[in-house]
């Protein structure tokens, strides 16, 4: 199958065009070493041609390591004999920005003898405002066909397909050499001149964009709009995804209810219920959150608001080595680190993205809540102060949430100052795209892909770890006594590690199992103390913990430990995938464990001074 490369600058409507041409029939692959997706799929009207959608780029002159990989992949594809032609998509409403890349692409294609078709997208927007593009004149200057299209309405797409067919049938393009030796500096000047000569006249588009920006970037109205939108985003993760998450759990419970009674012995039943369905549930339950968050973020990106949100948040986050685009991933991390890590894909600077990855696991995710609730109920008095205005337990909950966020910012601030690495950084030069109605289909497609990616890539790891921990906790006494299981023995083995913070093997085991998910800490302690349903009602467990004589210093140390430690296999699995670095992920996991342990030890020792 002959391949057609689709290239273009960010925000030129490439995804929309790709979907229109392929009809969403596509597959997604990751370039090694980077996190950008490359989609490909047969063109519906030309099944013999496969369209390959390359990541959006501003030029073929990379300024970061990640851009370099993407450009090298493009240049490598040009040398591929199966690549028959290239489609370069430009934004007809902002011609100069697109033309520099177009000229570079044409030059590279001339060097490799590949025909280029330039598609001038958003022609419907120009039509709407009575503006025109001199496509013929531009085509003559570029020595390549320039076809006005609208990826959104479909206008001109048939003509574009006819051009692709003609290029394919012709097999060999007439050699063109106009730009073959032209350096980038001259191409920049040429892009400027061509945009002036052939581009649309007037600035009605910029004016309408500026009017909306006056509202959305205003210090009062913009701030209010920002808070409202972020509130809705946060709600979407918690509230909108919750029914689907409940449905996943109910479906798994129902399936287990059907299958388990058919099994012959206790071992098979226990394995199926706890390891098999428990393992599947451990990752499937996250899918609704990932889907909903990706969808909402897609709406924000496609509408043009995301860039404005990044602008609003940039200044305070820059103090900690982050960028405005880090805000949404970090906010998402307050619900769950996994969708937050996925959301960090929107950060174009590899360095800032890595720093954001470091901050996200320290955001106080919802899985920590049951642990905090248990420990605060056990160790913080329930009294109030200031005439009932301030409750100590509520204050402690706020304090531990704030502590987590502060740790995340301090870590990134420290790392960004001690490891200067400008090669993977990008300047804060953010294009503010025009506001527009989002295209729902590409966003749904992306949300589906992201969910599928999570299930197929991270799901296997999460499932395997779940089964391993189940085996450790079940044998050799077939689940009769967790304390006597291999897991219990392991807990006693690692007990010396936790003795300095006043914890015995039971807490060691609970910390170990919380690697599955932090809230498992509560359930495990409940099992060890022989309490049914401790994860749903913590009161009996609180009584047992208080009766066990655990020191308040140990309780506070545990709180601090859970605020920092990266105790979640799902987060680690997806972090390794998204960062494309197991080394980074392992360092982060061990680093945060060491930091959490040191902080817990400090708290325990300090508490000892006051008790």
């Amino acid at each position, binding site marked *: 199958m002959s391949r057609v490369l689709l290239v273009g600058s960010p925000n030129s409507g490439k995804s929309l065009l790709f979907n229109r041409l392929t009809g969403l029939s596509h597959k997604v692959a990751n370039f090694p070493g980077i996190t950008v997706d490359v989609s490909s799929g047969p063109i519906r009207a030309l099944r013999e041609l496969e369209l390959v959608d390359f990541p959006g780029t501003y030029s073929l002159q990379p300024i970061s390591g990640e851009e370099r990989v993407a450009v090298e992949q493009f240049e490598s594809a040009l040398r591929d004999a199966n690549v028959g032609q290239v489609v370069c998509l430009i934004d007809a409403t*902002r011609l100069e920005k697109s033309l520099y890349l177009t000229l570079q692409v044409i030059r590279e294609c001339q060097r490799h003898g590949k025909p280029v078709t330039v598609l001038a997208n958003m022609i419907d927007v120009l039509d709407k405002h009575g503006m025109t593009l001199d496509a013929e004149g531009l085509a003559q200057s570029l020595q390549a066909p320039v076809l006005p299209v609208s990826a959104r309405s479909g206008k001109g797409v048939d003509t574009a397909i006819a051009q692709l067919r003609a290029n394919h049938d012709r097999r060999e393009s007439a050699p063109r050499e106009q730009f073959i030796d032209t350096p980038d500096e001259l191409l920049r000047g040429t892009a400027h001149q061509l945009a002036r000569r052939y581009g649309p006249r007037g600035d009605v588009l910029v004016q309408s964009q500026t009017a909306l920006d006056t509202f959305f970037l205003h*210090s009062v109205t913009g701030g209010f709009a920002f808070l409202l939108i972020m509130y809705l985003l946060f709600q979407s993760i918690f509230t909108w995804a919750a029914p689907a998450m409940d449905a996943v759990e109910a479906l798994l419970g129902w399936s287990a209810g059907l299958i388990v009674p058919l099994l012959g012995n206790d071992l098979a039943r226990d394995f199926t219920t706890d390891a098999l369905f428990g393992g599947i549930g451990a990752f499937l339950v996250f899918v609704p959150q990932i889907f909903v968050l990706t969808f909402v973020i897609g709406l924000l990106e496609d509408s043009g608001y995301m860039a404005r949100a990044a602008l609003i948040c*940039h200044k305070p986050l820059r103090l900690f080595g982050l960028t405005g685009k880090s805000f949404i991933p970090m906010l998402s991390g307050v619900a769950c680190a996994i969708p937050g890590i996925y959301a960090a894909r929107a950060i174009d600077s590899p360095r800032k993205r890595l720093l954001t990855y470091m901050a996200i696991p320290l955001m106080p995710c919802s899985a920590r809540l049951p642990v905090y609730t248990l420990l605060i109920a056990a160790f913080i008095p329930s009294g109030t102060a200031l005439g009932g205005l301030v409750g100590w337990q509520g204050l402690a909950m706020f304090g531990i949430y704030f502590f987590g966020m502060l740790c995340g910012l301090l870590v990134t601030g420290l790392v960004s100052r001690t490891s200067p690495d400008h090669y993977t950084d990008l*300047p*804060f030069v953010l294009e503010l795209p025009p506001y527009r109605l989002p295209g729902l289909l590409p966003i749904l497609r992306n949300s589906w892909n992201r969910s599928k990616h999570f299930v197929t890539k991270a799901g296997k790891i999460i499932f395997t770890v779940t089964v391993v921990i189940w085996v450790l906790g079940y044998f050799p006494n077939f689940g009769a006594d967790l304390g006597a299981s291999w897991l219990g023995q392991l807990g006693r083995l690692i007990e010396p590690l936790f003795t300095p913070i006043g914890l015995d093997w039971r807490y060691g085991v609970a910390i170990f199992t919380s690697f599955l998910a932090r809230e498992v800490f509560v359930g495990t302690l409940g099992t060890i103390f022989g309490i049914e349903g401790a994860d749903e009602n913590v009161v009996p467990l609180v009584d047992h913990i208080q009766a066990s004589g655990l020191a308040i210093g140990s309780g506070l140390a545990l709180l601090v430990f859970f605020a920092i430690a990266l105790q979640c296999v799902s987060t680690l699995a997806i972090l390794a995938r998204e960062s494309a670095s197991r080394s980074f992920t392992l360092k982060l996991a061990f680093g945060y464990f060491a930091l959490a342990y040191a902080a817990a030890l400090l708290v325990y020792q300090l508490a000892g001074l006051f008790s």
Partner: protein
Amino acid sequence: MDTLWNLRAGEVCEIVGYDDALAEPYRVRLMEFGFHAGEAVTCLHAPAFGAPKVYRVSDTVYSLDDEVAAHVRVRRNV
């Protein structure tokens, strides 16, 4: 010498060049976006609290923070 960062909302300037403190890759990216010598730039918005400012160059709108904009030398009132 005035810089892009000194502009207030509504002010127009012409780019004169870049100062040496701006890293080469950043300079390249700015020029790709159309911020080259002789180009007219309008400051569209200057949000409060030192947030990045919004500039129009040619037919496109960009936001630049002070780390970048303070290194772009400009001449006002073109």
